[in-house]
């Protein structure tokens, strides 16, 4: 199932080189570029993980911020007691287990009901954590005492983003991936063909949630302190969703394509025209729905194929150039 054709090797070699270059970038790049890029990697990992479940099954989840925040809090609580690696591993497990419980209790919900439920879940967790911290801990903030350099965080997030994309691609070629897509096409039909839809859905929801929790935990290492509003910020769910849809949730590498322009846009606009960012973001949504229903990825893929086949615009341009 996973054979690679000989023609794929140049692309893979090129990709490996690019990854190496990115991993070594901290040697030359400034601190600003690094922190921008590490946020980008985090967004790529989040939106790829989101698309892995929500993009294929069409169960639109707005609980990204909830799992992200759960990751942050798990790390914040554990990192003073156990070594960092164990704390991070625990984060993944906690994210997985919480999502398992949520998934099992929401099986009856579809469509808008699922969307609203996951949104409500984030709000609920946010409020309860906030209340707990104020009432029981008597302080709204928790401090992170981590001695981890930005370069390490950068490299870990790069690895996480790549792992998520490769993992998502790998699963898409397994039986599990076919089952996921079948559920997205028509859940009733999927069930009648013998797919254990409950198991597939809940398992993949939990996998995607554990990635989100780990990303949250790694990013938390950069914060001097955290509180509930930082950890459970609802707008994160929306940003992740829009990045995935802009890029194209039907391809494992699609969400990454969406995260890049969105990141640049937000960086550019929030600095110069803070009030215009929502307008641009909003128009982005509208453009996607009316003009790019599948996202950017299918367009890129078509361009690549026609280029590879030598019939495309760029190939013709290249030929023109040579003559």
């Amino acid at each position, binding site marked *: 199932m996973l054979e690679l054709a000989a023609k794929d090797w140049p692309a893979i070699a090129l990709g490996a080189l690019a990854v190496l270059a990115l991993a070594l970038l901290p040697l030359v790049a400034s601190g600003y570029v690094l922190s921008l890029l590490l946020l980008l990697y985090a967004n790529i990992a989040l939106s790829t993980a989101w698309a892995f479940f929500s993009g294929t099954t*069409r169960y*639109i989840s707005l609980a990204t911020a909830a799992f992200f925040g759960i990751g942050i809090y798990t790390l914040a609580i554990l990192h003073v007691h156990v070594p960092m690696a164990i704390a991070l591993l625990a984060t993944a497990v906690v994210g997985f287990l919480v999502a398992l419980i949520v998934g099992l*209790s*929401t099986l*009856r*919900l*579809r*469509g*808008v*009901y699922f*969307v*609203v*439920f996951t*949104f*409500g*879940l984030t*709000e*609920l967790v946010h*409020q*309860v954590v*906030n*209340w707990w911290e*104020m*009432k029981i801990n008597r302080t709204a903030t928790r401090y992170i005492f981590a001695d981890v350099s930005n370069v390490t965080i950068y490299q870990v997030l790069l690895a996480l983003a790549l792992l998520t994309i490769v993992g998502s691609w790998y699963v898409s070629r397994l039986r599990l991936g076919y089952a996921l897509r079948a559920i997205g096409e028509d859940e009733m039909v999927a069930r009648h063909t013998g797919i254990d839809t409950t198991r597939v859905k809940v398992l993949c929801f939990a996998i995607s949630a554990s990635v989100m929790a780990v990303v949250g935990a790694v990013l938390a290492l950069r914060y001097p302190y955290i509180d509930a509003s930082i950890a459970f910020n609802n707008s994160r769910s*929306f940003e992740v969703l829009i990045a995935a*849809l802009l890029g194209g949730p039907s391809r494992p590498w699609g969400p990454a394509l969406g995260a890049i322009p969105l990141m640049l846009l937000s960086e550019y606009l929030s600095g110069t025209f803070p*009030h*215009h*960012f*929502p*307008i*641009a*973001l*909003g*128009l*982005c*949504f*509208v453009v*996607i*729905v*009316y003009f790019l*229903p599948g996202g950017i990825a299918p367009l890129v893929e078509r361009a690549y194929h026609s280029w590879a086949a030598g019939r495309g615009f760029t190939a013709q341009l290249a030929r023109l150039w040579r003559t």
Partner: protein
Amino acid sequence: MGAAVILFEVFLNGLLLGGMYGLVALGLNLQYGVARILNLSYGEFFLGGAFAAFFSIMLWKLNPLLSLFISLPIAFAINWLMYQYLMMPLIRRAPDQDGLDADVVLVTFGLLFVFQGLALVNWSGEVRGYSFLSVPVNLAGATVALNRLAAFLGACLLALVLFVVLRHTRVGGALRAITIDPLAASIVGVDVRRYSALAFAAGGALAAAAGMLVSTFISFSATTGVEYTLKALIVVIMAGVGRVTGTLAAGLLLGVVESLGGYLLDPALTIAINFSLFMLVLLLRPTGLFTRA
């Protein structure tokens, strides 16, 4: 004051709060229940009504009620145009309601940002509020603010009007037919597109009316619209999509539970109580409290 009086006051405040929730949600249930368009930019029209009231009292020294003459027609027109020109293409290409919902949620979410951005650019992000009818009233031993009471009565009046229109007029019959089954309605000669557009536009106008009433006692800013969309959505889903008359009842339930829960447990937990109740309803009766099983 005895415990019973305090409890009564808490209950009464819950009722008034619930009336507000029901009021905020009425229009959304028309839009989502009848026209089948889940409009996430709904709260921006609510906010539009609130801003119109604010400007009419602060700039022109007019009674905020008069602002309805401006805000209602504008909200109606914008929503009608939205339905005809933005939603119709999506409805035409959608394979089923789930597919339509996905597209509509994205577009209206985008519109939410656009409207919010426009409001921020034009009116800044400042928190606004004004004082109107803010006098205490004694109600069977409990004290409530007159503006809250007025908004509550306004909510009841609007719900009653809506009920009468839906039950006892030809237009209402057509709307109810569309709610139950758009295809069947079109077979028996209902102009589904026209009446859906009407319901959608009326829902937007109701949002503006609710915004005006609520703005008399709650401060707001250009970014708070989405909160009301969510509150409305929660109430609509609790009541049952398309159960327009159940909306007020669901709002009242939510308000009373929130008020009593906040008093008995901890005021800081009110939002958590709200969402717990909502999620419980969603898990136990996903189609809403007031739908026939």
